[in-house]
């Protein structure tokens, strides 16, 4: 039991190490992951400026743009990852080794979190500085709690998607593409979902996305200076997501692996 745990922890560390090493070896990628989000969020900040919206909206957009970096990472470096591993011939090796698949996914998730957090801090800093976004850090521990819960929920969702996408070919890639802008919209990445202008149906659908609660909670803490008492609903919602998604991801992984082995699609490439 202990030996198995140590074995799986080694696998987690190894996969995390690969993600961190690989993700930081190409300066082009680092620059792109910093500059491109800044371009997009700048456009929305200037739109709010043109409309003479209050300065808080700049902070709103900066936080949204920062957290989107995590969602993009979840989509492309988690959800689509097993698909990429299959294309490059690594998936076969993973499935032949005596290591837990969840350990591999966990390593990928942790590596992604480390890399993206580094980028996110730079984007947040640059955005705040460029647009003089008024951010308040009265409750740093609450902010950190919200951030951690959001990340865990997002990456748990990423693990679930990774299992589902494992067997699919280009559909996986198209589906990952499809989950970009719609999620930005429904999670209120650039506008407050609580506004009366947003139809109830949109708000309802938004509550199915962990990012919605994460963004709401982090913004309330950092822009409006609210504390844990005010954001308890966001904390509970994210906790529920985590409790549901993690076991679901494990179940989906086992199910999809068996399905793949039955149908012979586990190592079928270039579908």
């Amino acid at each position, binding site marked *: 039991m202990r030996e198995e745990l140590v074995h799986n922890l080694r696998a987690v560390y190894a996969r995390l190490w690969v993600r961190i*090493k690989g993700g930081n070896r190409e300066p082009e990628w680092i620059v792109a992951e910093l500059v491109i989000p800044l371009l997009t969020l700048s456009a929305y900040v200037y739109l709010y400026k043109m409309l003479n919206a209050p300065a808080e909206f700049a902070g709103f957009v900066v936080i949204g743009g920062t957290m989107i970096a995590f969602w993009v990472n979840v989509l492309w470096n988690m959800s689509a990852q097993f698909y990429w591993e299959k294309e*490059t011939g690594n998936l076969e090796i993973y499935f032949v*080794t005596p290591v837990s698949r969840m350990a591999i996914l966990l390593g990928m998730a942790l590596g992604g979190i480390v890399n993206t957090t580094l980028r996110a801090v730079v984007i947040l800093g640059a955005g705040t500085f460029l647009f003089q976004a008024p951010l308040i850090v009265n409750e740093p521990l609450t902010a950190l709690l919200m951030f951690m819960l959001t990340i865990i929920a997002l990456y748990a969702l990423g693990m679930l998607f990774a299992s589902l996408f494992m067997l699919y070919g280009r559909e996986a890639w198209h589906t990952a593409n499809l989950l970009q802008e719609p999620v930005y919209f429904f999670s209120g990445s650039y506008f407050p979902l609580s506004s009366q202008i947003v139809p109830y149906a949109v708000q309802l659908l938004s509550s199915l996305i962990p990012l919605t609660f994460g963004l709401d909670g982090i913004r309330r803490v950092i822009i409006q200076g609210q504390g844990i008492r005010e954001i308890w609903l966001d904390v509970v919602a994210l906790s529920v997501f985590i409790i549901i998604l993690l076991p679901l991801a494990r179940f989906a992984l086992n199910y999809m692996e068996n399905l793949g082995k039955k149908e*012979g699609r586990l190592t079928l490439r270039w579908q």
Partner: protein
Amino acid sequence: MRTFKAPNKPVKALDHVSISIEEGEIFGLLGPNGAGKTTLIKILSTLLLPTSGEAYVGGFNVVKEPNKVRKIISLVSGGETPGYGILSAKENLWFFSQLYGLSSSAAKEEIKRLITDLDFEEYANTRMSKLSTGYKQRLNFARGLLSNPKILFLDEPTLGLDVLTSKKLRGYIVDWAKREKKGTVLLTTHYMGEADEMCDRVAIIDRGRILACDSPLMLKEKLKENVIMRVEVSSVQADFDFIDKMEGIAGYSATRSIQSDTTMLKVMVSNEATFLDIISKLEKQKLKILSTSKAEPTLEDVYISLVGRGFEESAEAPANA
């Protein structure tokens, strides 16, 4: 048994395959493309479920005890080089060592030894994406041997490699299996020479069925009752179907060379008189006979005698095999 669903009709990739491999044996599975070799290896390495039947590796059931199987096996496939291009050869090996639970210090030692044995120290710190095909495959072999597996599955391991690299890797595996680690090897290949050189026993497989299984020597011995003749003719377009209709023919293969515009026919006949008949029929087709010779039986001849045709004439693999 393993059946794949297909739009028109199901494809039987493996049909009542039953083999048993002894511990310490190098066992070859020889057959043309689409015979079912890779399908069998995927079942035994727990990547694929059989449609029916049972398989045991190292005493463990591949369906019910896959994790126990995975602890004692390793898989090296030819034509593929798993790993991360952005990492160096050494870094890739370290990563894979952790998937097998090796401590970093043990992994370091093992990696150093394998890199030396497989002769790619010069490229140990080179990014995998920059390695040539030959060195990538050496890396692939090193990865497969890192965990000191009891059973090594080699799926067309020298596919696409040059002659020297292939020879080196084959020699290494035989050494590893016989002298060093006393491991068991299941090798799939469509290179006759490879099976002949490396294997203690060979099973010939075609269209999902095992046609024969014995040592290479014994398989060839069984052909001694036939005479194997080679004849080279001056055309790639000639029709040789008439040979099938003749009596006294155990089988034949035709290897066409567009470059030299010649065809090398290899026929297995019951006596030399039948061969003279063939020569006369070829001359009637106005074909120039460039050379004739008697040949020693090879594993391909064994295949031809079982199937009636050579590897080149064999049908294409089903899509999922």
